[in-house]
């Protein structure tokens, strides 16, 4: 596809999403909320995907979302900051913790890295539970206000959410975050940075042999990953207007992996597609909810066996040119 065609396609997709979803869900706030939640999850999931892209498996994304969530909640309720400052602050706070943990942690390869990240979410939950002075312990932080007005030089850029249709306003906030996140990831992957990340995924020794600063690049990838987790966490906090230690649990951290798998690890939009299909699919199939972990597990096994490159690797030969192993669609093995 040519560059112009791609841009047109993206613009059309974004416009359809921004107009179509609120229109379809008019008067059905519950469903609009489902889409909004999915968009927030997809933002967090983008970070997990990026770590797959450098050849590691991050099972601790929930921890960083939780950190971002608490950072935003504390900034808004205790320090009285505007949500519009608290959200990037949450991203940075999560990124800072991510880089501090990442520096030693990212030296570990393969399963060792995954094992430690797996324990991070539980660690974060326990920390949130016991640091009562900061996090209010198991009771959580409640009554977090909706985003207020954002004005620059007296001009109102975003009106106070309380004066708007709350559900719709949150949907648009989620949509903007979603678009920005995936634009950033897409740009990263298609720039030289993406080449370097791919070189790490394939062979770190070889990359360092021609001068790539491998440890630094790993930390950069992890910083981007945890920033998205923080921003996503902040978004959930303002959406639910509350946060508890269990807002993000180990289960959530592993679901992010599954979302990436389903969509396809070799595709920038894999985690987005995976998140929307799986999350919304289960909301529609309400009756199966109690079997969700079981079905997710089976699905994960099935995808690994029969569709190792994810849903996006399926091509309809009539409508799309055959898949070439060119830029965004390489990778795959981890």
């Amino acid at each position, binding site marked *: 596809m040519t560059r112009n065609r791609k841009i047109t396609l993206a613009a059309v997709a974004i416009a359809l999403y921004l107009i179509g979803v609120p229109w379809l869900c008019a008067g059905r706030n519950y469903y609009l909320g489902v889409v909004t939640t999915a968009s927030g999850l997809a933002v967090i999931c983008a970070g997990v995907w990026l770590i797959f892209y450098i050849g590691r498996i991050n099972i601790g994304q929930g921890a960083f979302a939780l950190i971002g969530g608490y950072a935003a909640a504390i900034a808004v309720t205790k320090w009285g900051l505007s949500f519009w400052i608290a959200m990037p602050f949450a991203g940075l706070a999560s990124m800072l913790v991510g880089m501090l943990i990442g520096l030693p942690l990212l030296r570990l390869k393969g399963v060792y890295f995954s094992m430690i990240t797996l324990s991070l979410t539980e660690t974060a939950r326990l920390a949130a539970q016991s640091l009562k002075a900061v996090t209010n312990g198991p009771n959580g932080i409640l009554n977090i206000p909706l985003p207020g007005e954002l004005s620059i030089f007296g001009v109102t850029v975003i009106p106070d959410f309380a004066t708007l249709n709350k559900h719709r306003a949150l949907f648009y906030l989620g949509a903007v975050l979603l678009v920005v996140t995936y634009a950033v990831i897409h740009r990263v992957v298609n720039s030289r940075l993406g080449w370097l990340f791919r070189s790490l995924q394939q*062979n770190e020794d070889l990359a360092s042999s021609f001068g790539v600063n491998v440890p630094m690049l790993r930390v950069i990838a992890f910083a981007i990953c945890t920033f998205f987790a923080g921003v996503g966490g902040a978004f959930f906090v303002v959406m639910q207007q509350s946060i508890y230690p269990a807002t993000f649990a180990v289960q959530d951290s592993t679901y992010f992996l599954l979302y990436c798998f389903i969509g396809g690890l070799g595709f920038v939009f894999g985690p987005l597609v995976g998140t929307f299909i799986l999350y919304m699919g289960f909301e529609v199939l309400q009756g199966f909810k109690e079997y969700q972990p079981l079905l997710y597990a089976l699905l994960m096994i099935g995808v690994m066996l029969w569709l190792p490159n994810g849903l996006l690797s399926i091509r309809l030969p009539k409508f799309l040119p055959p898949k070439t*192993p060119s830029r965004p669609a390489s990778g795959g093995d981890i």
Partner: protein
Amino acid sequence: MAIMEVVKLTKRFGGLAAVNNVSFDVHEGEILSVIGPNGAGKSTLFKLISSFLPATSGKVVFRGEDITSQKPHVVARKGVIRTFQETTIFRDMTVLDNVVVAHHLHSKASLIGFFLGTRVARDDEAGFRRSAEEIIDFLGIGQMRDEAAKNLPHGHLRALGMAMGMAAAPKILLLDEPFAGMNAEETESALGMVRGIRGRGITVLLVEHDMPAVMKVSDRIVVLNFGEMIAEGAPSEIQENEAVIEAYLGREDEELGI
């Protein structure tokens, strides 16, 4: 003039000295080979020089600067580039992309510049592509440029490894067993490549098993046995050297391609 000096380099694994007190110079513009029987410590020496393994004692001096036990990417930035044994390449990338990526050292753009796609970054990109095309043509794999690297036959993989080494524009290129597992014809063409690389003013240090190939291509040879250096000299001198013959053959003179 010595471009690199290896001074009393030693590596111990527990009680075993894999490389013991080895000293030699690498002269600018030469092809120097390190040979020795299996287990002589060639590969360890190679890793020590390229800093993929920290030395127990001794040092490696490159252009007057001590580079011992520095991080591999730091050593690479100074102009010491290594290739790998066997098939260490980016398997899922095309041949051309492998070589483009290997130009990394020469980027002028910052990481933020890559992200924003600044003019400098785009110029880098175009320049790397041109240079990569030139290098793969030079090494005779230009016709495979769009092939996924994992699909290349053995001989071409080696050429790709060398192409990636050249892409980094090293002062000294360290080749790890460049002729291993090749048939006579492939070896012949690989010899041509090594000479071609030297012809571009790059000093070559190679570690190798294949004696006839080493004899043909080297200016000087260093021989290791049980971690110690037992001989150093021109191929003709090495062929005559008693200690070398003994190390390779035991007491009896049998056939060996030297």
